């Protein structure tokens, strides 16, 4: 994955895995709002790149998005799990229940702010429901970051990049209704064997991405 060094305050780059899981999660629960977090490599000493690469996503909830205890449990488990891979929670995504509503609500802002406390580059990603379809031409997301005044500002379209080939791959997944296989934290709480890191989805993505490159 090529990463462009950018002088401007941060471009955002979404890996195929990240965008896929967000959209599959939203597609699995069309009648509800859904939420989750996105992950990035912990910032080492590398200050040459201003691009934030979001390498993966972990779907959280589709039932009650705002229950503090469950959120706390989820974030704690996720931090623990990915620590060894050098990944940190780098943002929050949400799809509202209403098709035309892509505005972050009270819950989204609160959670995104909490995550931003540990990470200035944190993103707040709203899924643009009405742009979800079976043949994606663009990534149906609105990505925001905090300004120096502490306000969430949405990034220009040109600053948000998506891994090459992702849209085709995700469209295929949606056409094949793979969303029914994605697990979120709510599923995990109902059945501990549901793995919210979705390794089976990662597998499918690897296969499809490889096929696309042939």
């Amino acid at each position, binding site marked *: 994955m090529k990463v462009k060094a950018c002088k401007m305050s941060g471009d955002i780059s979404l890996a195929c895995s990240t965008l896929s899981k967000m959209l599959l999660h939203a597609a699995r629960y069309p009648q509800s709002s859904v939420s989750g977090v996105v992950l990035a490599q912990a910032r080492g000493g590398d200050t040459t790149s201003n691009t934030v690469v979001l390498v993966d996503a972990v779907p959280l909830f589709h039932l009650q998005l705002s229950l503090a*205890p*469950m959120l706390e*449990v989820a974030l704690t488990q996720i931090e623990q799990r990915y620590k060894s891979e050098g990944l940190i929670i780098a943002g929050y995504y949400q799809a509202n229940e209403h098709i035309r509503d892509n505005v972050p609500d009270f819950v989204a802002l609160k959670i995104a702010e909490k995550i931003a406390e540990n990470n200035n580059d944190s993103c707040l990603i709203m899924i643009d429901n009405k742009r979800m379809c079976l043949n994606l031409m663009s990534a149906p997301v609105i990505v925001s970051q905090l300004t120096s005044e502490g306000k969430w500002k949405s990034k220009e379209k040109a600053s948000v990049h998506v891994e090459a080939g992702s849209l085709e791959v995700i469209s295929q997944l949606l056409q094949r209704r793979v969303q029914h296989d994605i697990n979120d934290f709510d599923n995990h709480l*109902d059945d*501990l064997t549901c793995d919210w890191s979705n390794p089976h989805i990662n597998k499918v993505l690897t296969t499809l991405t490889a096929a696309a490159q042939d």
Partner: protein
Amino acid sequence: MAAIDLDWEEVRDQLRTWREDNTRHSEEVVDMWEYCLRHYKHKLGDERWMVEEQVVIAGLDCYRLDVAEPSLVSLSEQFTGSLRVRKLKAMRLEALERFDEAIDVYDSIIRLDETNSTARKRKVAVLRGQGRIADAIKELTEYLKIFMSDGEAWQELCDLYLKEGDYAKAAFSNAVLNGNLDNMEIARSYFCQAAKLNPGNVRALYGLFLSCTQVSSSSKCSAQKKKETQQLAAWALKEIADRYSKCRTKAMDGSKILETFGALSLTDKA
């Protein structure tokens, strides 16, 4: 999706189960109807009409009007003047986002039958669909004055309050279901109840653990209550760790749970 391979009687039975459980499987219902059961509708006897109704609702849910509408027509012809069918027509208007017209139809049903709870609840759904949460809350509160034992409605009210960010009122709605009024203690009793009713419920155990942790770290908590609550928290955490151990899940193993969350219970939260 190859429902055409399924025995039509199996499909019929599956649809019946979903009706009885009142669960939402709209995509599957549409598929099963389209690729199988509609070819056998004349074999369904009296059950046909309940199936057709189920198909209308599932079709509307998936925005497959091509599936919903023919069934709606069949039902209209079979049950002319029925209020139950009229409700389905209003739901179709909802799907088409013709919300004001839908509300008019629901109002007409309520005028003809004041005891009709479904039409009233659909009105709340329309308001929610329009994003008019405050109005939905108002309408639902009026409904609950008449139908105060409707558990589903209290849940919905709680949900609506949470959407408005009104945690105090949400807690109250929840409290109505649980008979206890102190905010944090409500959470605790709710989870306690859930854990009792379903000991396998990890969600309840986590909720119990965390709400106990919060209660016991509150400055208002007496020494006695603190001790009891901490014991309850420790018990809950151990139960959770046990569940994970039994599962041997990769996501998190039992010993890690105790380690990770054990630390939480020692921290005093502000």
